[in-house]
């Protein structure tokens, strides 16, 4: 059986967690249908062969471009897929991954399935499941071209979690015309909202930016939590757009999403309705968010937040 190529996302010399999840998905398929799992880093990285092998890779190919070039990375992936005879290319559906998905498909004359939430091999080949219409429906699709490219939504797949060390091989990098020349406004400390396991998200119900320390304190009490925001809050200038969750912001699927003072407009739900557990805190018992929440608390967020933070800290200390 042909091999699977997983294109890793590297930032600051590290492989992003969502790429390890894509390796896990590839491993599952390779175990079912045969073939190897090749991981490709299109830019310079000192790969952790234990971690990548454990997540699912058999071999790690390193093409050491100095900076990310979107077209260069795609050209490298297309060439490597051809040389290695891979018939399936998988990526994490991050902002970079979504962009590469269509480009690699163009180079391989392939169809593509972006932002998949499930992936299954059956007698006829591969079946990809993906949300459409902002999550208001899902589609199952088959790619009919000989080669296929798919991006996988973060947090829907797991790294293989095995004990295995991958081997390493260096391959040449292709030059691109577009180049990343600078990274600005790097977020330090907290993970990005699109990758976090837990998100604490605030809306207009928090009253103003002066109340955000209450939300930040809650996030601090939850290790690995990111801060999110509704569009109302971003439009008002209380929070940066990088935190916005929803149709015109980021799509997230954390294990726990805590929506505080967020009404639950359809465009907000579009970005977070696939979260595993949703907690809503809202003073209006009729707010639409409660229809989607696993657990709801009705009341004033400004009173509830400090209590929740305090209780979490006490639980951790105890």
């Amino acid at each position, binding site marked *: 059986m042909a091999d699977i190529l997983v294109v890793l996302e590297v930032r600051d010399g590290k492989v992003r967690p969502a790429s390890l999840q894509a390796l896990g998905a590839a491993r599952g398929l390779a175990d079912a249908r045969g073939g190897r799992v090749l991981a490709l880093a299109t830019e310079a990285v000192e790969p952790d062969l234990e971690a990548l092998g454990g997540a699912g890779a058999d071999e790690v190919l390193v093409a050491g471009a100095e900076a990310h070039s*979107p077209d260069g990375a795609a050209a490298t992936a297309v060439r490597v897929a051809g040389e290695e005879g891979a018939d399936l290319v998988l990526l994490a559906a991050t902002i970079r991954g979504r962009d590469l998905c269509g480009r690699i498909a163009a180079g391989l004359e392939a169809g593509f399935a972006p932002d998949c939430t499930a992936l299954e091999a059956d007698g006829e080949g591969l079946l990809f499941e993906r949300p459409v219409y902002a999550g208001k429906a899902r589609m199952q699709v088959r790619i009919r071209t000989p080669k296929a490219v798919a991006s996988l939504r973060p947090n829907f797949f797991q790294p293989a979690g095995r004990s295995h060390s991958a081997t390493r091989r260096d391959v040449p990098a292709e030059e691109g015309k577009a180049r990343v020349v600078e990274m600005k406004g790097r977020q330090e400390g907290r993970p990005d909202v699109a990758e976090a396991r837990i998100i604490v998200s605030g809306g207009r119900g928090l009253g103003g930016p002066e109340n955000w320390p209450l939300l930040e304190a809650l996030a601090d009490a939850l290790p690995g939590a990111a801060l999110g925001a509704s569009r109302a809050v971003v439009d008002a200038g209380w929070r940066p757009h990088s935190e916005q969750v929803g149709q015109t912001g980021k799509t997230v699927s954390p294990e726990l999403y805590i929506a505080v003072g967020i009404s639950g407009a359809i465009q907000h739900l579009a970005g977070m309705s696939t979260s595993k557990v949703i907690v809503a805190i809202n003073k209006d018992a009729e707010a639409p968010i409660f229809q989607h929440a696993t657990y709801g608390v009705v009341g004033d967020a400004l009173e509830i937040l400090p209590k929740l933070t305090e209780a979490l800290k006490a639980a951790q200390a105890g």
Partner: protein
Amino acid sequence: MEILVCVKRVPATTTRVTVGPDGKSLDPTGVEYVLNPYDEFAVEEALRLKEAAGEGSVTAFSFGGAEAQKELRTVLAMGADAAVLLQSEAAAAADGATTARVLAEALRGRSFDLILFGKQAVDLDQHGVGPMVATLLGIPCISEVVALEVADGKVTAEREVEGGREVVEAPLPCAVTAQKGLNEPRYASLKGIMAAKKKPLEVVEVDPGEAAVEVVSMSPPPPRPPGRIVGEGPDAVPELLRLLQEEAKVL
């Protein structure tokens, strides 16, 4: 400055989604269609760049059914100079790769400095047509752009990625896909709407050929287990915490 912009007719984001009788597509009954919101940012940016350059033209392309003339007229009313409908009844259901092939075929051989796209069409949410068309045409593409500058034959753009803001440079000709934040799209003025009626809208029949991706089924999202109100006010906190730890096991 010659600018091309690709636009799609899509269901409004407030549409209630019902699966059609074929079990594979949206039931169009009662659905209101609009110009894809991200394509509004693309059109606006095209118009601004042309205005800033003081010369040039903006031409809009759409691969769609006959109805998509309406959205192209909207783009002309906003200020574009000409529009081309690549007409096929198969367009609405076409996958991203098939759409990109049709668009690339139509754009190949045209002279242009820049092609603008929306970052995503809010129907199948594929985020892929722009980068794929650019690759097929052999030009660079900068995706999901929130700030754009064109000077000295070069594009400098900013895009928000996980954990920061990337600054990307590319030479012209280049493609760009527009994200919210790039600009505030203008409304078509009455004068614009009148003028649009006289602007050229060319209709070209196209045959997309065999689909690259086949839809097997469409269904409602997986049901969420029913939620519950844990309680009211700060007194509900201990019970909420217990449920998160013991029932949901997320803490």
